[in-house]
């Protein structure tokens, strides 16, 4: 680097000043690299051109943090150059656009605050947010996953919500991976799996928030890049939702101490994983859920007393992002003195304090009249607190450390980064025919699918999560006396209302075409929600993708976003929040592109929630929906190691019709049990219903299934969307059939008192699987 460029300017502080005007292109890149900024040359030049004086390291770090992919979502907001022209902002052109067009009056705050907010009941709002914590979990599985949960819980606290449920969707490499196949720096999937699950459980359990819903997937596309989605839902009285920071309000920081842990988490999250990440141990965050539990109490007390004018969590970027954001969103400025901060280590440089991502911290803006009371509350809850400074009208972020100025930036400049440009190639997948030999024993096939790593029971994980704490879990992850898998969790968050919050998810990373992958994920999230009785569903999108600077990854992302717009509109489900995690690359290549859709619905009476277990001998079993030969990416095909075929597509108008009548049927009480069809198709759904039921079973006559498909295995394992298997009382069947007029409906069998599943294949051959052998295959005992 050129001499004179970097100077130590203070004799008291560890503070460096960089005169960017002296820096050439090479220097700029070197600065970005050495300071861990992850800024591109364009961005560095942009800063250089606009800075009228040498910048301190604190200031440059602030740019690095604020302009990171994690904090500002630059790819989603940037220009995408395609063959057909430029797309200006994926976010505005697809995700937010659908919501805007749907224009639902019950969407109270979308894409704005730390979490999406929708109306709930009796003046209460429901808040929802889902995050990813992939990079930290790859390096330190326990701490990474735990702090992922902790972080998303703080997002709910950051909209004044009382957290009521946690969700986790996890994708790992196959547990059977051979150690020798792993490049240096990539940890074995088993090690990651154990750590991540223990971490998720530990945080939720310790904080007393039930972990109620999620999913686990295994695929070699995740061996180098583990995917950890953590979600949190909360409720709050609408009238107490304040976001109105004013001049002269105090900026109050409360919670855990600030340390070197988690320095550069965001730039770390926005960079590829490599062997070097082992050394990035400062990016490791140590979870301390007990502090967050106290922080939660204090936050709710401050909310209930209407004592603060604003709140936000400290997540990516630490103080540097939270303070700027809070001031900027209210068009204010802020003066900060760092001296009073509680530190874990004595000798931290100002920039380290400023960008530290130490966990369990929240920032509040507090009017002077309430300051004393707020401090008392923190004291009672045994929380360390520091008055950082005061908001003002300056529009600047002014930071001093022991009186010396370390940062003085105009917020407008900080919050108008240069737009990034990304190129996207057109996405094409070669249409391949899928050739599969017809098996002779469907029962055998079903049993082997039941024990497939991607389909088998998750009981051994679910039971390590407390899903009952708070006493509000009306619909559980394992339902029925024998613990069958439920489609969605139902929470009853308010004491004086029967209204339930219905939480579901949809995720289909194995469908090769990103468009239909996204479409079916949205439809699945809705379908799962409806299956238990949910309605008025809002959705959250969480993209996990590879390096967006690569045209092919970008092309696929674009295609998935197109489907998000199309199907949000067509299925009438607005997006309310979401997040993207890009740059998931490892020496093994990019992550398998993965989109998680989380569905948040409501239901008027939790007592009417429908479950999967069969209820009464002699009831009729119907299949709702049409079965096509859609085997591409299906669990059955993958279990055979086969590829090709077309993946399931979504008929949106049919899907909407089905959900409408199904909700009505559930409300009128004629649906006794319901389970949606997803991975493993009709076969797996029927088997799971039998597994969940004590003393009862069902017959499934495949000859009755409405379909053009005639081959038994295809009929049984196709993953066509918009389908449900339901139990209906015989006396109500006429009424039911009338209600579903115009919808593909097949009466496929009935409930029997023989525990298990009787399959009748298209040729009329019967085979019987007992409940106990299916249970053994599915859950291992």
């Amino acid at each position: 680097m050129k001499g004179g460029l970097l100077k130590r300017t203070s004799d008291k502080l560890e503070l460096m000043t960089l005169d960017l005007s002296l820096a050439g292109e090479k220097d700029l890149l070197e600065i970005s690299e050495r300071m861990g900024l992850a800024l591109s040359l364009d961005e560095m030049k942009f800063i250089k051109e606009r800075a009228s004086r040498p910048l301190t390291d604190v200031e440059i770090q602030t740019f690095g943090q604020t302009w990171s992919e994690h904090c500002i979502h630059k790819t989603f907001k940037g220009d995408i150059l395609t063959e057909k022209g430029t797309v200006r902002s994926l976010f505005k052109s697809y995700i937010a656009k659908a919501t805007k067009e749907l224009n639902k009056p019950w969407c109270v705050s979308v894409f704005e605050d730390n979490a999406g907010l929708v109306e709930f009941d009796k003046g209460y709002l429901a808040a929802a947010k889902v995050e990813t914590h992939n990079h930290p979990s790859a390096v330190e599985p326990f701490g990474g996953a735990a702090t992922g949960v902790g972080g998303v819980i703080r997002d709910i606290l950051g909209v004044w919500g009382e957290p009521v449920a946690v969700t986790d969707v996890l994708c790992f490499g196959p547990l059977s991976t051979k150690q020798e196949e792993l490049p240096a720096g990539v940890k074995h999937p088993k090690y990651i799996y154990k750590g991540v699950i223990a971490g998720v459980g530990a945080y939720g359990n310790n904080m007393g928030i039930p972990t109620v819903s999620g999913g686990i997937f295994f695929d070699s596309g995740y061996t180098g890049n583990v995917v950890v989605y953590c979600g949190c839902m909360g409720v709050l009285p609408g009238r107490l939702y304040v976001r109105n920071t004013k001049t002269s309000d105090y900026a109050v920081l409360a919670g855990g101490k600030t340390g070197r842990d988690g320095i550069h988490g965001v730039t770390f999250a926005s960079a590829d994983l490599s062997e070097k990440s082992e050394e990035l141990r400062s990016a490791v965050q140590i979870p301390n859920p007990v502090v967050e539990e106290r922080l939660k109490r204090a936050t709710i007390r401050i909310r209930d007393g209407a004592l603060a004018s604003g709140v936000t969590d400290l997540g990516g970027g630490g103080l540097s992002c939270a303070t700027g954001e809070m001031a900027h969103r209210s068009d204010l400025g802020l003066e900060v003195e760092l001296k009073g901060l509680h530190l874990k280590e004595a000798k931290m440089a100002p920039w380290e304090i400023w960008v530290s991502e130490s966990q369990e911290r929240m920032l509040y803006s507090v009017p002077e009249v309430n300051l004393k009371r707020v401090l008392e509350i923190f004291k009672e809850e045994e929380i360390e607190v520091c008055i950082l400074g005061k908001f003002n009208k300056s529009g600047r972020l002014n930071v001093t450390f022991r009186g010396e100025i370390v940062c003085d930036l105009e917020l407008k400049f900080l919050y108008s980064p240069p737009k990034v440009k990304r190129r996207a190639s057109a996405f094409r997948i070669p249409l391949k025919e899928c050739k599969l030999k017809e098996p002779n024993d469907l029962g055998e096939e079903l049993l082997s699918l039941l024990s497939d790593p991607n389909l088998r029971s998750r009981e051994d994980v679910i039971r390590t999560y407390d899903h009952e704490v708070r006493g509000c879990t009306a619909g559980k992850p394992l339902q029925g006396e024998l613990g069958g898998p439920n489609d969605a969790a139902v929470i009853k968050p308010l004491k004086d209302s029967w209204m339930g919050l219905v939480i579901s998810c949809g995720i289909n990373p194995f469908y090769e075409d990103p468009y239909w992958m996204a479409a079916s994920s949205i439809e699945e999230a809705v379908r799962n929600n409806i299956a238990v009785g949910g309605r008025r569903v809002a959705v959250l999108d969480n993209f996990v993708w590879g390096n967006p600077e690569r045209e092919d990854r970008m092309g696929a992302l674009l295609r998935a976003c197109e489907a998000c717009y199309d199907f949000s509109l067509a299925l009438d489900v607005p997006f309310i929040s979401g997040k993207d995690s890009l740059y998931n690359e490892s020496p093994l290549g990019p992550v398998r592109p993965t989109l998680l859709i989380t569905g948040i619905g409501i239901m008027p009476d939790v007592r009417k929630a429908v479950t999967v277990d069969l209820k009464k001998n002699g009831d009729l079993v119907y299949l709702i929906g049409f079965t096509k030969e859609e085997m591409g990416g299906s669990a059955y095909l993958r279990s055979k190691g086969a590829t090709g075929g077309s993946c399931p597509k979504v008929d949106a108008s049919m899907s909407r019709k089905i959900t409408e009548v199904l909700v009505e049927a559930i409300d009128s009480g004629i649906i006794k049990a319901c389970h949606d069809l997803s991975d493993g198709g009709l076969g797996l759904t029927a088997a799971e219903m039998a597994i969940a039921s004590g003393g009862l079973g069902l017959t499934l006559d495949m000859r009755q299934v409405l379909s053009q498909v005639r081959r038994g295995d295809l009929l049984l394992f196709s993953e066509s969307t918009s389908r449900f298997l339901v139990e209906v009382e015989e006396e109500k069947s006429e009424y039911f059939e009338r209600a579903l007029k115009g919808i593909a409906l097949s009466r496929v069998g009935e409930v029997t008192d023989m525990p298990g599943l009787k399959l009748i294949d298209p040729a009329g051959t019967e085979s019987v699987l007992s409940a106990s052998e299916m249970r053994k295959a599915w859950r291992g005992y």
Partner: protein
Amino acid sequence: MRTMKVRIEVRLKAGHFDPEGDVTSKSLRDLGFPAGEVKVGKVYTVDVNAGSREAAEKLAQEMCRKLLANPTKDDFSVEVLTVEGRATQKDKR
């Protein structure tokens, strides 16, 4: 091949904040003890089958790297114990 006992100690690297140590320290002071900083770690006593003391030690280190410790946040130390339980060799990293 003999069965040997190795003693493995895993603790947080210096510089990492130890929440458990912090809470324990406070509780000790509440009970009236003149206690300052507390750090908490784990000890494993593992029976291993190995040809020699050196081999046992190597195995134990490998166990730490693969399962018992995470190099990004933990330090570990290994000693091979004689049958009587006394230390004979020590290795730190």
